[in-house]
């Protein structure tokens, strides 16, 4: 009994310290702490009048506004809400990236299967890849207009070059042994693509998708700010023109958080798909 009563508090202490250590190691905790600090500083800045509350409204006004559920800007046809705008922008990124992935996959398959095409296609892709996605905006608006298709096209152009190059590089980088062995085991052309090449390039392809997501995300927002008449970027420009700085701030934060969340989701999908990578 005696020993029981003496080592009990010890055990409690180790349990607590372990719990504290676990919490301290949690990324989520530090993420929340960092943001709390920013919000506090921001509030303090407004309170002390270091910041002009007209231009940068304090969190105590901005946060309730963000959750009031009734955020929208503009009149009549031009009226757009935060959630609607976000959904539109996300759909554009999604469709544009899917189209980009589809076309670049086809290009990569053709380049690998037809050596002649490699010589022809690769220089084009290589010269497209370094073009900054935003550079396509004026061209697109002039050619396609200011509708949703223009935004999708900008995303598509933003990802096409880099994605094709990454996919081709990943395919070229497959260890020769895998292909030799697969060929030797009597693998048909279709099965070679589906069961050998595709899984072998998945790590490279997933990285390419994550990287091009950032490019696409920036490009579509820039496009929406530069003239396309809907979406999150458009909402921010509209809020700025109507001097609703709270909404501008909320829009900026939404861009950050959604970008961050999608990157995390892609990372999660990555970990799920790629458990086999050492």
């Amino acid at each position, binding site marked *: 009994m005696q020993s029981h009563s003496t080592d009990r508090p010890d055990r409690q202490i180790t349990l607590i310290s372990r719990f504290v250590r676990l919490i301290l190691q949690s990324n989520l905790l530090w993420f929340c702490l960092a943001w709390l600090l920013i919000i506090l500083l921001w509030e303090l800045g407004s309170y002390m009048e270091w910041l002009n509350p007209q231009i940068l409204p304090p969190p105590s006004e901005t946060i309730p506004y963000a959750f009031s559920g009734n955020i929208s800007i503009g009149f009549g046809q031009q009226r757009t809400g935060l959630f609607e705008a976000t959904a539109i922008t996300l759909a554009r990124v999604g469709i544009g990236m899917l189209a980009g992935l589809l076309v670049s996959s086809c290009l990569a398959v053709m380049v690998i299967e037809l050596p002649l095409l490699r010589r022809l296609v690769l220089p084009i892709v290589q010269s497209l890849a370094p073009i900054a996605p935003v550079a396509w905006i004026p061209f697109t608006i002039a050619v396609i207009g200011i509708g949703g298709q223009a935004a999708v096209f900008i995303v598509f152009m933003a990802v096409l070059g880099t994605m094709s190059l990454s996919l081709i590089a990943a395919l070229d980088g497959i260890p020769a042994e895998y292909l030799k062995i697969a060929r030797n*085991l009597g693998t048909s052309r279709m099965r070679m693509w589906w069961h050998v090449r595709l899984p072998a390039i998945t790590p490279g392809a997933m990285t390419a998708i994550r990287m091009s997501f950032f490019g696409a995300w920036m490009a579509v927002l820039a496009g929406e700010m530069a003239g396309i008449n809907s979406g999150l970027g458009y909402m921010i420009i509209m809020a700025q023109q109507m001097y609703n700085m709270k909404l501008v701030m909320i829009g900026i934060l939404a861009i950050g958080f959604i970008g961050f969340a999608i990157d995390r989701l892609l990372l999660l999908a990555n970990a799920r798909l790629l458990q*086999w990578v*050492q």
Partner: protein
Amino acid sequence: MGTVNSMNDIATHSVGARLEFSNIRKSFGNTVSVEADNLTIEPGSLTVLLGRSGCGKTTLLNLAAGLDFPDHGSVSYDNQILQGPAPATALIFQTHNLFPWMTAEENVAFPLRNQGMAKSDAQEHARQYLKQVGLESFSGHKPSQLSGGMRQRIALARTIATKPRLLLLDEPFSALDMQTRRMMQRYLLSVWNDSAATILMITHDLHEALMLADRIALMASSPRGHIAEIMDIELTRPRNPEDPAFRAIQQQLDRFLEHETLLAEHDPTLESTDQQK
């Protein structure tokens, strides 16, 4: 279950292939080249290509697999000149043998699926082959969860599953530690005994060559990669490294390799360059 019961006689169904290199010349650019005038590999024999890296061993193996073709001369498989991937031939390399995205079972089942076997049958067979190498309880593991020796055993299991008549091994055990390597050599010998397949194996490990080979083709790298000597090893099996006859041949081969190394030291153009890939 009938298919699985018949597994016991899988090994004895066929005869090994006969392989013949005649007047082979193969160059890569103007630097590395290999020649093999006449090398016949008899059905069911175990031949080892022994030599330092850069003497064209892997090139000869690729030619035997029909994955590459000579500039001059020909490789015959059962008296037919090879013009594409050699039939009923299995390859095992030092690394990258298993597809890391597949489980052990999926790896072994893969060639069976290639042949059009139904998925459940292929899985059933794969488990049986894994049992033969003592790894049936690891069928759901990915290669990254297994040791190097286990991976090579699974590669061997997959190889048996394809019922090869010719087995081409490119330094299959050189990434393994000494004990595992010895164990794998015994595995290979038992697979070879059961299957009657012809084996052509590359190694730079003299001891390994002597433990396994019926025949050793010694390769030299000067003035270009070529087969310097073919030795028939008539030691009884199982072989014992303590046997004086074993030692005598070992010393003889050692002197040859030493001479090769000396030559290379005086000729910088012969610096080890592995021309595979």
